[in-house]
């Protein structure tokens, strides 16, 4: 072997590594505190905003109106209960009503998540692989819906590029899928809130094709508003909408969110996800300990919990679940094996298979888990335009080729000028008393005693918050809790 052989062999490097190496590191992104402290056990909020700009549009008077409004499904509240179950006919009947409503949302046509893996996997790699060492969170489902709406509003190659990225053949198929995905994730029962809220903000001078907005309202549950961009009244309307979608918890921060007068159209999506742990962490057991961060050891608060959970043993990582209360999903913690980094995991096929499809059932087992996890509260703000262009969605960012004719009936000079993705995830000890009925369901009658294992998340790890159907609502990396 000589140096030429080596140079030649490097020429066979994996395409994905080569593509990644082209994305020049642009330095650590700044962290911006978006939201006030909250008290939920798990609170996750993502706001993605795609802003479409056309310059030279004049403004005259300030008016603002709702031109298409989404109607969310009604859901019976999760009944309050004392102790371990529902006693008395009234309680049981309230529980049945809640259960029926949840089932109605969850029972979507089989295969409704087919085809999403490829976009989710590309998106997770694209948007979490930058800036090693920085805490990051990405919501694949939030960006999927945002792209879906953009596909509805575009035509020609602009639309085709989006459809190819999100892995669907036609806008009709996308519409059906997006509606099923939206409904399957929806939960608003007083205990768990999981709402994928979408909206369009249109400048008053833009002629719009109302059928396009109706399609968005019916299938993407997106409300559309039209008014004078940059006006106080229109910004106030936007802020009211954001407050409503986020339960009013972020009122102070939402006040900083405004649209300027150059904007022609803004697509704003939020995910507000709030759930309580199935098995709470006792605050008395929260202790300071060492976390081995990339930059050196740091001290932080570790929560300690104990419960029957799922363990997954893979070649390059171990993963454990921590269930949410009232059947609202799971939080998964993925700890890389010694010598493997979080970045390695993001490029690892088995990790992706586990995150998106649950991995190999043979590698799963029920265990008694002693979990030690640092409390964290991370905010990540990123701009998606460049990453989306690297994933092949280019035309919507270029005013000379972007085709927004389905929205406006004309396609001149309109393009997406920015696509922000802001996510915050916070976990703490809070939760309800032991949810015995779910544990019983999980264990099953006569099951063998599960093995007892310990998991100490004291070095950088990956996490995912998955819904009941296993779809990743959020995936993130914690480098420094």
């Amino acid at each position: 072997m000589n140096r030429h052989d080596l140079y030649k062999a490097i020429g066979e490097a994996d395409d994905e590594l080569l593509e990644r190496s082209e994305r020049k590191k642009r330095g650590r992104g700044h962290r911006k505190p978006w939201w006030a402290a909250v008290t939920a056990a798990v609170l996750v909020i993502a706001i993605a905003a795609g802003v479409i700009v056309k310059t030279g549009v004049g403004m005259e008077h300030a008016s603002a109106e709702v031109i298409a409004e989404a109607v969310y499904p009604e859901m019976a509240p999760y009944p309050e209960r004392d102790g371990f179950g529902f006693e008395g006919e009234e309680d049981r009947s309230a529980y049945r009503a809640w259960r029926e409503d949840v089932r109605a949302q969850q029972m979507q046509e089989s295969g409704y998540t087919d085809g999403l893996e490829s976009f989710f996997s590309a998106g997770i790699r694209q948007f979490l692989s930058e800036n090693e060492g920085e805490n990051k969170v990405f919501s694949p489902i939030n960006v999927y819906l945002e792209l879906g709406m953009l596909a509805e509003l575009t035509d020609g190659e602009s639309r085709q590029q989006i459809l190819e990225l999100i892995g669907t053949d036609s806008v009709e198929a996308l519409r059906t899928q997006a509606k099923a995905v939206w409904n399957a994730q929806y939960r608003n029962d007083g205990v768990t809130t999981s709402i994928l809220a979408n909206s369009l903000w249109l400048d008053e001078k833009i002629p719009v094709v109302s059928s396009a907005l109706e399609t968005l309202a019916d299938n993407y549950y997106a409300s559309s508003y039209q008014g004078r961009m940059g006006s106080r009244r229109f910004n106030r309307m936007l802020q009211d909408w954001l407050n409503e979608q986020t339960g009013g918890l972020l009122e102070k921060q939402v006040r900083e969110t405004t649209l300027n007068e150059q904007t022609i159209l803004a697509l704003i999506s939020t995910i507000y996800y709030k759930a309580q742990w199935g098995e709470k962490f006792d605050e008395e057991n929260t202790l300071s300990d060492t976390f081995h961060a990339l930059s050196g050891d740091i001290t932080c608060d570790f929560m300690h919990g104990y419960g029957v959970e799922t363990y997954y043993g893979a070649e390059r990582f171990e993963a454990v679940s921590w269930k949410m209360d009232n059947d609202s999903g799971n939080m998964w913690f993925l700890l890389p094996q010694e010598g493997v980094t979080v970045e390695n995991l993001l490029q690892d096929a088995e990790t992706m298979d586990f995150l998106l499809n649950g991995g190999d059932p043979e590698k799963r087992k029920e265990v008694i888990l002693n979990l030690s996890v640092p409390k964290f509260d991370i905010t990540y703000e990123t701009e998606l335009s460049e990453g989306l262009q690297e994933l092949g969605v280019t035309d919507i960012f270029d005013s000379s080729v972007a085709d927004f004719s389905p929205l406006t009936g004309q396609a001149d000079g309109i393009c997406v000028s920015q696509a922000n993705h802001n996510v915050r995830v916070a976990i703490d000890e809070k939760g309800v008393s032991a949810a015995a009925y779910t544990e019983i369901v999980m264990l099953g009658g006569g099951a063998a005693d599960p093995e007892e294992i310990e998991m100490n998340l004291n070095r950088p790890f990956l996490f995912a918050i998955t819904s009941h159907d296993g779809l990743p609502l959020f995936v993130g990396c914690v480098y420094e809790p």
Partner: protein
Amino acid sequence: MHDKRIVELYWARDAEAIVQSGRKYGAYCFSVAKNILDNHEDAEECVNDTWLDAWNAMPPHRPNVLRMFFVKITRRICLDRWRRRTAQKRGSGEVPAVLEELADCIADESDVEEELIAKELAECIRAFLRTLPARECDIFLRRYFFTEPIAEISAGYGITNNHTAVILSRTRNKLKTYLAGEGYFNE
């Protein structure tokens, strides 16, 4: 034009494939060819040869990432061209420095090259790259795949030339250990 459509044109034996490839990826492949050959005309010729090689490769190939498929061909053609040209002592480019650095990773150079060994070596390098932290791997590929000058890499990552050189040197040492572990030579 979308990549999928370009690949379809190759499969349909439509010469428009070459026009579209040149339009979309000509400049991209040229930038890599220029790094390797440091000569405008030679680099241009190699890029033109790239489309012909691609024409012969598709079908049966159906590349997943067309851009990388093309640039790998360009790089291979450029290296051959560089080797022929060096025999005639023409030009320089980044290649001599890059090869000199790569010689650090090999304990005992020999000129025996077999097809099978080349294939195994490529697989070994791929596996090695997957073990690297993202930034080290990215910088390694900028230097030894894309053959970029160190100053350009440093500017891209916002670090000093010295820092880049140190990262590259550490990664080469890792590669040397890795190759020794795989039995390519005794350290």
